């Protein structure tokens, strides 16, 4: 994002986008990530989004709100979001802080996240998807 190593990578796998956060992000970087990801969801007409936050050692109120907002915007664009890799102590702290992940489903890791999406996708096919 600023000439250094990538802070976040967004990969496409079929109709799913896999976004991996590689390091702690500050607020501006989180907002840029949000914009990039939402843009790509639209561009690729993705049906599922996995956000891997295993590298985040802190998810404070701003980060939690941003992740929830990404999921909500994805939903409005017809894509289901799963958060994966939230560290146990981070999850504990988010709850204490009063900032859970809201209605955003979570999974232990990438594999379980993909399984969860597959399961939910089969119940809710995207209406405008030609392959559905």
């Amino acid at each position, binding site marked *: 994002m600023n000439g*250094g190593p990538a802070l976040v990578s967004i990969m496409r796998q079929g109709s799913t986008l896999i976004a991996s956060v590689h390091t*702690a*992000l*500050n*607020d*501006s*970087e989180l907002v840029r990530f949000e914009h990039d990801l939402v843009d790509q969801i639209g561009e690729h007409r993705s049906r599922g989004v996995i956000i891997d936050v295993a590298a985040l*050692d*802190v*998810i*404070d*109120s*701003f980060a939690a*709100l941003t992740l929830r907002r990404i999921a909500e915007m994805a939903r409005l664009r017809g894509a289901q979001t799963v958060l994966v890799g939230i*560290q*146990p*102590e*981070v*999850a*504990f*702290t988010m709850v*204490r*802080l*009063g*900032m859970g992940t809201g209605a955003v489903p979570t999974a232990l890791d990438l594999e379980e996240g993909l399984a969860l999406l597959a399961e939910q996708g089969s119940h809710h096919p995207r209406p405008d998807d030609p392959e559905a």
Partner: protein
Amino acid sequence: MSASERFGDSLGHTAEDVADLIPMVRRIVYARVGSHPSAEDLVQETLTRVLSAASTVEPGMLEPYAIVTARNVVSSLWRDADRKNRNQHRLVDLSAPEPPEKQVVLEEEQSAMATALARLDERERRALLDHEVDGTDTHALAARHGTTAGAVAAQLNRTRARLRVEYLLAIEHVDPPTDRCRPVLIALSSGDQRRQREVQAAQHLLECEPCARLSQPLLERGQQRDDCLRIPVSSDADIVSARRAARELATRLTFGATDLTVIATAVSEVCRNIVRFAGSGEVVVELLEAPRRGIQIVARDGGPGITDVDRALGDGFSTYGGLGLGLPGVRRLMDEFAIASEPGHGTTVTMTKWEGTDRERPT
């Protein structure tokens, strides 16, 4: 013979030299006070002081002299707000330039500081100045030098310890009589007890009169230096640096992974309040020994303040539109939490986590 005769006009610095320092002085001041309304006044005050002393500053020493002056001018602003707390956290305790008759003393102190800076080796000096002047955080410095933030922080602490020693030697006009003097004084200055034993500091102090004399102020300060961090906060990136620094310091106690995350998260929240609502401020993180072992975080700013603290601590109030974002959650995260706020005069949040108190940590 007066100072200006001694150096002569050809050697003394000119107004042009001082003008060249303006961008650097601005950087120092703004890195510390951010968008504080007096920032530009502080820049001007610094330049005025540097200009008035320029002709007597030795060639090549104008830059360090300006750095020291800017730091003093800025810290005198903070001192007005909170004199007592500030004293523990300055690099070297330089007196406030209040009564005019103290001006001469102050200039002596500044030139001693300049001498001390010049005695550091180039790499140390560069890292310290990048950190102190430009506000480059330890992680950025670590990336630049291909090392870890912890190693950079430790190196910065050693550099500060050396700087304090060199400063004292310069201001007291002491030429250390033995080769052991500097290592002993630096070990005392850094508060590193293992190193103090290695260099047999106690024994040396019995044998060496100058070191015994100089050790007094070092011992008085050393205690608090090593387990206390002051982090200026005025940007998104500072929020991340502050919470990393707090976590790093907290690892010296026996906090578990959950407590470390809790501490980092609480610091993140209070820093964000500073950036969002006050523009700039600072966080002081300190390890406590008494009444119990723990970590205390004081976040203060000179912003608009919170009109209704009770309301800000109510959960419904924690929105991004209002003041007091996240404070109810932070209060739940920490063991002690206090907030003092005066509309128009800023907010101070003081919070503490004691060692070994988390009951609900996940296994």
